[in-house]
């Protein structure tokens, strides 16, 4: 199965990212920049949700360790040096979950969203998938790369 929705989704990724950051993460002086330049910075962590059903794919948000601490710090209203690894995992996972839920709402339905998964990028592979949309959010000087993949590990993807 292929999902020919790249154009639509590309627009929505920026809009959805802006809605999520504005509602949950922005606070006055540290406004996020959307559709920021992709400088190819190394990403330490990846949080992802899988979509299975009429649309098959993954929504991934990846960022640095510092960026992940910033997200957890704001979402849990804690100091950056107080957040635990569990806090970081839960915060990044929820970020992927809300982004994925909103992306799913503009994709073919019905489909189901998996629970979020958070891991080191060096341990993540996405065989059998193609990238259909990608954008970068810059927040507090750190890039957050949002990627929508089409296809899944258990099915063939047309070239």
């Amino acid at each position, binding site marked *: 199965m292929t999902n020919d929705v790249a154009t639509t989704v590309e627009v929505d990724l920026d809009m959805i990212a802006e809605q999520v950051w504005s509602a949950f993460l922005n606070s006055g002086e540290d406004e996020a920049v959307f559709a920021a330049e992709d400088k190819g910075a190394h990403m330490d962590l990846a949080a992802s949700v899988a979509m299975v059903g009429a649309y098959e794919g993954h929504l991934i948000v990846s960022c640095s360790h510092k960026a992940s601490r910033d997200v957890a710090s704001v979402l*849990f209203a804690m100091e950056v040096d107080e957040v635990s690894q569990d806090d970081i995992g*839960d915060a990044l996972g929820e970020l992927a979950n*809300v982004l994925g839920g909103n992306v799913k*709402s503009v994709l073919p339905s019905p489909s189901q*969203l998996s629970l979020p998964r958070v891991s080191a990028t060096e341990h993540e592979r996405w065989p059998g998938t193609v990238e259909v949309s990608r954008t970068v959010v810059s927040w507090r000087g750190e890039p957050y790369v949002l990627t929508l993949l089409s296809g899944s590990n258990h099915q063939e993807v047309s070239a």
Partner: protein
Amino acid sequence: MKILVADDSRVMRQIVIRTLRQAGFEDHDIVEAPDGAAAQTSVAEENPDLVLSDWNMPNMSGIELLHALRASGNTVPFAFVTSECSDEMRTKAEEGGALFLISKPFTAETFRERLGDILG
């Protein structure tokens, strides 16, 4: 007043509680539940004035929780706070007796508009 916040994500419970505070509802008591089954128990024990519930939760989903409460004769005001918000879900929620759905992401302004009449 007492508000029960039911969501399997502790991050989302934290965000909902923070947004309630930002919306000016900081004087209300908050009770948390990590799934629908725990929320059902909490409604019986805590007798909240409002339930704000996620839709997708383990053990008992939000819509199952609403059906269970109404089947037992409980008429507590009930609203969904959910990242998925299809027409089908809105219809199910309405038929089940929910007040409305608030979709994630939400803002303090949304909470003020939707909850102002209930929480004062």
